[in-house]
């Protein structure tokens, strides 16, 4: 997760990364044994819900590259 977030902060994210991030958060949240594991993805889930436009702004500019 940290690795993917770093990609976004370096403007290297892709739409697949957002999908993977969502999958990872969902899996960690629902299969964890302890409360720490169940709640720690919430930080990322919240940013995805409220600041999704920022993720999208920090994606790799595919159109520009072509």
């Amino acid at each position, binding site marked *: 997760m940290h*690795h993917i977030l770093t990609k976004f902060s370096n403007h290297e994210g892709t739409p697949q990364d957002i999908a*993977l991030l969502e*999958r*990872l958060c969902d*899996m960690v949240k*629902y*299969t*964890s*044994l302890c409360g720490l594991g*169940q709640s720690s993805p919430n930080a990322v889930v919240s940013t995805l819900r409220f600041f999704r436009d920022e993720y999208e702004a920090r994606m790799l500019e595919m159109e520009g590259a072509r």
Partner: protein
Amino acid sequence: MTKTFKIDGIDVSAADDQTILQVARERGIFIPTLCYLEGLSFVGACRLCVVEIDGNPNPVSACATFPQEGMEVRTNTERLQGYRRLILEMLFAEGNHVCAVCVVNGHCELQWLANKLGMNYNSLENFNPAKKVDASHYRFAIDHNRCILCTRCVRVCDEIERAHIWDVMGRGVNSKVITELNQPWGESLNCTSCGKCINVCPTGALFKKSKAVAEMEKDTQFLRYFSNLWEVEK
């Protein structure tokens, strides 16, 4: 007292000391596991055996949950398949699992399970961590690159052999199994060299020396009451 409940719509009954996983195994219902081994205590570490229970938003691990009267358990929904797949991918990404050069290639539970669950590629990037190999023991060696931290070796050494030379050290991706107080295995005075840890290891992390690629076969018959999923399925 016997409890009755449902697994995938099939009526089953369980004794007081039976977990959901044990009942499912008895009835031939497939639930993938890596850390669970019959005859040892359960830890619920690998999370592959997660099952859904009606009325409970969070899936629970079947190996560590005792059934309740009237429970309805589902073992193979699309959601669970997704979770299991991602858990497996994370296991592969976190270590250096290179089957082609592994001593247990073809006899590996992790490899078999990935095959069985249809994991044909890994959507996660490999960590490629720099992990060590300890070959100081005169008969056995441990390759931390292939360790998935199921703690089977820890439990078998503690509960069956009663030597307890294995333990887990560190946190998160930095955790690893250690012998004694993180001393080289060969210097351990308490290790009885019984080889139980070698044979319960689901991957090629623990292996006998002088075995080449794909030559190491686990002898799971040396402890008769152990039965792992792989053996049952075969």
